[in-house]
Each structure stands twice: as structure tokens, then as C-alpha cells.
């Protein structure tokens, strides 16, 4: 769909998903790395738990479908080659660390060029000089303060999320600028603050105080309703399951069906299953229902969950229409028949003779298919090819650049 779009990605963790999304949608994406390799190549986990420039699985996952060149953008040669290359491309994406200068600032791009810059905080603002890492950017998003249990410290994702949130919004910002250019032929600068992008996963925490409400608190592990701890995740026979108890006209009926199932399985008193869960909250206020009944429901669900496997809970959720699902680990994801048969996966080569199924098709189209046409580039894999084909450099010139450490 983007087969007429050419992208230069100055590789950084926060550009990787942006480049991958554009490449998956058909753009010709070239990652530009310093001769020592992109910082993205040093992100865990590593193939076989052995680190190496070609062994980062994060790099592999987020750079397939791209070609790779090395250039020292801090040298006159690197800058000159970048300037020449840029004339042949539509988009350049970069991520600049807090307070650091962009290596692209000295390059004058053509008016058609779309330049997307990701910064940790707003590019020109009170925190633009802030030293920042993915970890501190996420802390600033508002999501971790709400993640985990109130009696313990906040928790973060084990996979860096700032680079994902920012990368995805950088793809969108770039495409918005591309649509504008389709109309009037002119490029422009697009800016993404990783922190604001990551606030998407904080679900409007920022608008709570301004609407006259008390701040929300971290309660993800267990909601407390009428003094009763109501968990969202339950231990089951072979792992964990998410089971949500809701009330009110829509969600209450799901709770009703859930309780009925528990009673049928002999895990809950029939009387508890027959309580009107749709009206439970208002009945509590009217003293027609009592907290111990809710405790009995929770205890019954704990007992029910322990007697069932993840697959059985998933099946019951589909059959009965419940807000329940298995808490899948990555093996479950890899094995899940729904993802398999739907065509989420496609083969990707990691190293010679080593292939895995990657869940690459983030969207399915009636007349386009996301395919992994090439694995993530090895360091400098396409440098000679691109300098020759795009810029007409001779074989001797390319070797001279290598000898000087420029590529």
C-alpha cells in the first residue's frame, strides 16, 4: 500500500516499530546505523541467551522487512552521503535523546521531505533537556503508578513500552504528513513526544483531577467492593485465568451466567447463583444484599477456577458469554489455534537455518497482505548495495569509506 514510499530510519529504539509498521505496509525502509551498530542491537533478550550484535531478538522482531546501511553521521562524509541519500527518499524518521542534538540538524532537506522526530518529552519545552530512558519516560506516562498492587511499589512492563508507544505514533504522524503531501506536494516536520504517546496507556489519568474527581489508586490486582477483595486474575488448574465480575444491566447478566455455571459444577451454593447480580450494587445500598454474599461468590469462583484448565475456561467463556479468558503466556500465544488459523503468523529467518513463526500480521486486508519478505538486516548488510545503486559510488570509493571507518 505504501510501495511508492521510501523511508530512511535513523535507527534508535523509538524508531524501530515506526519503521517496521511502514515497511509492513509496503514502504521501502532503510535503517541507518552508526558503524558500531544501532543501540537497538543491544536490547535484550538475545538469541540463545548469548549476546551479540546479530543476536538481539528485539532487533530481529522490530527490523524485519528493512534494509540496513551504516554511516557515521557525525563526520563530513557521513553527512554528505546522508544529504545525497535524502534527496531520493520521502521520509526520514529519527529519535533524539533528551538534550541531545539531532545529527540531521545540519542537513537541509528538500521541501518534499517528511521529517519525523521522536523525543522523550516535548521537543521544545520545559523538559526537553531532561535526561531520559525508556524507563523514566514510562514513569512519566501515568500508567505505572496505576500498575500493580497498592501495598507494593508500582510495576512496569518487562518489555520496554515507551519505544513501542512512540514508534506506533511516529508511524501515524508520518502517514498523516504523507497524506498532506499527497494533496499539495509539500513535506513537513512531525513531532512525537514518547511520554505523551505513552499516556495513551494511562487511559485519561490526566483528566481525572480536572473533572473534579479524586485521583484513582492502584488496585489492579483486586478491586475492593463493600470491603470484599474481588480479584481479576484467578489461579486455575494449569495457570491463570482472567475472570471479571460486573454488575448492572449488561455485565450483571454475565456474572449471573458465571455464578450459574459455578453452581452447576458444585463449586458454589445455589442460593448465591440465584442472587440478582445485575442489581447487586443498588441492592447493597438498599440493604437487600450483603457483602458476605459477594465474598461467597468470589470464593466459589476461586474454587471453580482451580478445578478448570485455561482451555476449559476459554471454552465456557465463549459458550456462556462471559468476561473471562485464559491468561496466556507466550507458549499459549504461539499455540493458539485462533491466531494460527487466522493467519497471524508468518515464517521469519533468524540466522542460517533457523526459522520461527512470527505474529507479524497486525492487520488483515481484503486486497493486501503483510508479509515478512526479509529478516532484520545484519549490520551494514546493504551498505555497498545502496551506496552503489542510489548514489553511484564506485567500488573503490565504498572500500575507501570502509577503510576510514565511515561505514
Amino acid at each position, binding site marked *: 500500500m505504501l510501495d511508492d514510499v521510501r523511508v530512511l530510519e535513523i535507527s534508535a529504539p523509538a524508531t524501530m516499530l515506526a519503521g517496521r509498521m511502514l515497511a509492513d505496509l509496503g514502504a521501502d525502509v532503510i535503517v541507518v546505523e552508526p558503524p558500531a551498530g544501532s543501540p537497538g542491537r543491544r536490547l535484550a533478550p538475545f538469541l540463545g541467551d548469548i549476546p551479540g550484535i546479530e543476536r538481539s531478538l528485539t532487533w530481529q522482531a522490530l527490523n524485519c522487512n528493512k534494509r540496513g546501511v551504516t554511516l557515521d553521521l557525525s563526520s563530513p562524509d557521513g553527512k554528505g552521503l546522508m544529504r545525497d541519500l535524502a534527496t531520493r527518499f520521502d521520509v526520514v524518521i529519527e529519535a533524539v535523546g533528551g538534550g541531545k542534538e539531532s545529527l540531521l540538524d545540519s542537513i537541509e532537506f528538500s521541501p518534499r521531505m517528511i521529517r519525523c522526530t521522536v523525543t522523550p518529552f516535548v521537543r521544545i519545552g520545559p523538559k526537553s533537556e531532561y535526561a531520559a530512558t525508556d524507563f523514566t519516560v514510562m514513569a512519566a506516562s501515568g500508567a505505572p503508578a496505576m500498575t500493580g498492587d497498592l501495598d507494593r511499589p508500582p510495576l512496569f512492563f518487562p518489555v520496554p513500552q515507551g519505544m513501542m508507544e512512540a514508534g506506533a505514533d511516529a508511524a501515524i504522524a508520518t502517514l498523516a504528513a504523507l497524506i498532506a503531501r499527497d494533496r499539495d506536494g509539500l513535506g513537513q516536520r512531525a513531532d512525537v513526544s514518547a511520554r505523551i504517546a505513552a499516556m495513551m496507556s494511562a487511559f485519561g489519568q490526566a483528566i481525572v483531577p480536572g473533572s473534579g474527581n479524586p485521583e484513582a489508586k492502584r488496585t489492579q490486582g483486586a478491586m475492593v467492593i463493600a470491603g470484599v477483595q474481588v480479584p481479576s486474575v484467578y489461579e486455575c488448574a494449569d495457570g491463570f485465568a482472567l475472570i471479571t465480575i460486573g454488575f448492572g444491566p449488561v455485565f450483571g447478566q454475565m456474572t449471573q451466567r458465571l455464578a450459574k455455571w459455578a453452581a452447576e459444577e458444585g463449586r458454589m451454593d445455589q442460593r448465591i447463583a440465584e442472587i440478582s447480580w445485575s442489581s447487586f450494587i443498588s441492592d447493597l445500598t438498599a440493604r437487600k444484599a450483603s457483602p458476605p454474599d459477594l465474598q461467597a461468590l468470589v470464593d466459589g469462583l476461586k474454587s471453580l477456577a482451580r478445578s478448570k484448565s485455561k482451555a476449559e475456561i476459554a471454552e465456557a467463556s465463549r459458550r456462556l458469554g462471559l468476561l473471562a479468558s485464559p491468561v496466556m*503466556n507466550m507458549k499459549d500465544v504461539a499455540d493458539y489455534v485462533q491466531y494460527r488459523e487466522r493467519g497471524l503468523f508468518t515464517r521469519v529467518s533468524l540466522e542460517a537455518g533457523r526459522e520461527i513463526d512470527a505474529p507479524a500480521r497486525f492487520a488483515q486486508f481484503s486486497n493486501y497482505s503483510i508479509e515478512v519478505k526479509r529478516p532484520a538486516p545484519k549490520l551494514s548488510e546493504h551498505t555497498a548495495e545502496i551506496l552503489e545503486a542510489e548514489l553511484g559510488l564506485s567500488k573503490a570509493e565504498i572500500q575507501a569509506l570502509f577503510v576510514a571507518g565511515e561505514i
Partner: protein
Amino acid sequence: MAAPLEGVHVLDLSWVMVGPASGRYLADMGADVIKVESSKRIDPVRTLGPFKDGKTGPERSLSYHNLNAGKRCIAIDIRRPEGREIVLRLTQWADVVLESFTPGVLETLHLAYSDLKLRNDRIIMASTSLLGQTGPYAKGTSGVGTMGAAMSGATYQIGWTDREPTGPWGPWTDAVTPRFIVASILAALHRRSHTGMGCYIDVAQAEAGIQFMMPAYYEYAANGTIPERRGIAGSPLQAPQGVYPCSGEDRWIAIDASDPGHWEAFRASIGGELRDAKFDTIIGRLRHRAELEETIAGWTHEQEVEAIERRLQAAGVPAHVVSRGGDLVRDADLLEAGHLHKINDPVFGEADIEGPRFSLARTRLHPTRRGPRIGEHTKEVLAAVLGMPETEIAQLGESGVLA
């Protein structure tokens, strides 16, 4: 300069979070987004808080405004043949249609892509659901973002090792999925501008969540290791990187001084026991991590969190308050960027909602506006967009179609 999607028409049949948030991106980019709702079947997000001043009511949900800012809204009963015909006529007007019904529902209403395409073969239609439109468990499966998080492998990996997983905050895939929908729609609009070709787009929310967890998936697929929850905030390969308690209730500072340069700046600024030779090297800091973390926590716990952020930033050390809502609303960076916008709603008065998540220098995004009330623009849209005579509108109103 006009916003990039000025003149692009979007028919938004979606509800709750994923679809509406996708439509919001398009509205911010200048598209004319018409949300289809019904007072008989209101958008459930209207029942979710925060509510202005904590008072509930379908026109008081700020989550609703945050997800539907800048759209127009028509109230129609699409189950009635006349209501369905309005949807089909709006399809002729639209460039993009968004929907998030349980897979199979639109087929029964004869409003599936195949039906819409008959009226407008250039249409770009995006459907989103928990598990997608195809595959053995697709049809009839509905779900929410907490289920998406659970089925994407995220929930399993977030929590304490001695407890059940807690999972990410809220319906996490509802935040992730709109990015993949919007990028797909924009790519399709670009292609259509050259080829005239529309398309159907199917995005499964659980699959979108997997994209943000891709490194963990690769760890399993390549190494055979199932990534487990860690029970710590930071990375096991990087120290010090973590959250440390500060004075006050539930106040935490995030510090990442794991990079050697940042570490030297950090220990020079704090001094004391951090100067101990056992913390000189990366290996030393990892081997004595518990002691290191304890020493840092001993330094932070009686101090005010923002003071620590300022002091460490002045020394060039990555540090930030673990922000809560109250911090975000007075954050200098967000205020300067104008990320929080005051809206003035005729029903509840003033409140904050968020602005767009990126900026364009030339073709600026649309200024942030409030969301529409249920059916606020029904007559305006029927008359101006569909050219419907007033008598016909009145007739439809009387027969209960416009409700």
C-alpha cells in the same frame, strides 16, 4: 494550512474504546467524523468515569469526551430498515467506515463490507474486535481490553512472583489497537489517492497487543523460554534502574542510572555509601543490587519526590516522578505543550480532555473540541449531508428511527 484529513469523511459506527479512539485520531487530523449512536443503545463508555464532579450521567463521562472529541453524532436505530438506509446513504458520503460490533452482527443487519461496497466501491472499512473476523473462534466472540491484554501475553508477565499476575493497568489493548487501525487506514487512504482502490481492514485487539510484546514472543519462539513475571520494576540486566519511595503517601521516583555515564553523575551527586568501591563496576552493581537499591531508597524515602527529580535532572541523571493524575495535570511539559485542553460543555461546564499525541508543523492538527451529545447533529447531518427534506426528517423522527 488545512489539517491533513480536511475533507475526509468518516462514518464511525464503533463504540466503547478502540474504535472511537481510532476515530478520534482521524478527527484530530481534520476528518469530518460522524458517530452513529442511539439513545436506545448508548455508547457504554458513557457509563464509565471519570464523570464531571463525580456525578454520573450519559452526558457527563469525560472518558467519552476524550475518545470522541471533535466528532459529530447522529442518533439512529440502525436495526430499523429506514435507519439502515441512512447508514447506507452515509456510506456513499464516507471515505472511511469504522465499526467494532461483535463479529457477525453487521452481516445480520446487512451492513457488512460486501453490502457497503455495493453503495461505494471506494470505501475503506475497518473492523475491530477481540479476536478478529476470521478463524475458528471469531464469530460471536466479544470481549474487552483486559481480555485482550490477557490473550496477548502481557497480563501474564506483569505482577509479583509470589502472587497471581496483576496485568497492565486497565483495558490495555484498547490503548494499543487504535495505532494499528489508524496506520492501516492512513496507508489505505494513501493507496486510494493513487489507485482509487478501497479495502476492508480487520484488526484483532489481542493480536495488536502482541505487537507491543514482540520481544517477549521472540524470546519464547527462538529460545524456548517462557518469559515470566519479574516482580521488579526495572530490568534484571540494568542497575540501578527502579522506583524508590519518597515522602508522602504512595510517592515514588523512577531512577535509571544504569548507563555508566549516568551512574557516575548519580553517585557524584548523592555521594555517601554509593561511593563504595563495590559499586564501581556494572558487575559490582548487579551483584550487590539489593544493597544498592536499599541505599538509594534510604536516600530517597524522606525527600519530596519532585525535589529529587529536579536535583537528579540538574546532575544529568534520568529520573522522573512516577506520575499520577495529580502530577500530570500540573506537569510543566504538558502545560507548555497544551496537551490538556479545557472544554466547555453545555451540560456540565468546564473539564479537561487530552489533545492529540503528535504534532505537525505545517498542516496543523485540528484544535481539540468537546465530544458531541447523543444525536446532537442528527438533523444537521440528515439535511446537509444527505440533503433530506425537513418533512422526511420529521417523519423519521415521529416513527422513532431517529432515537
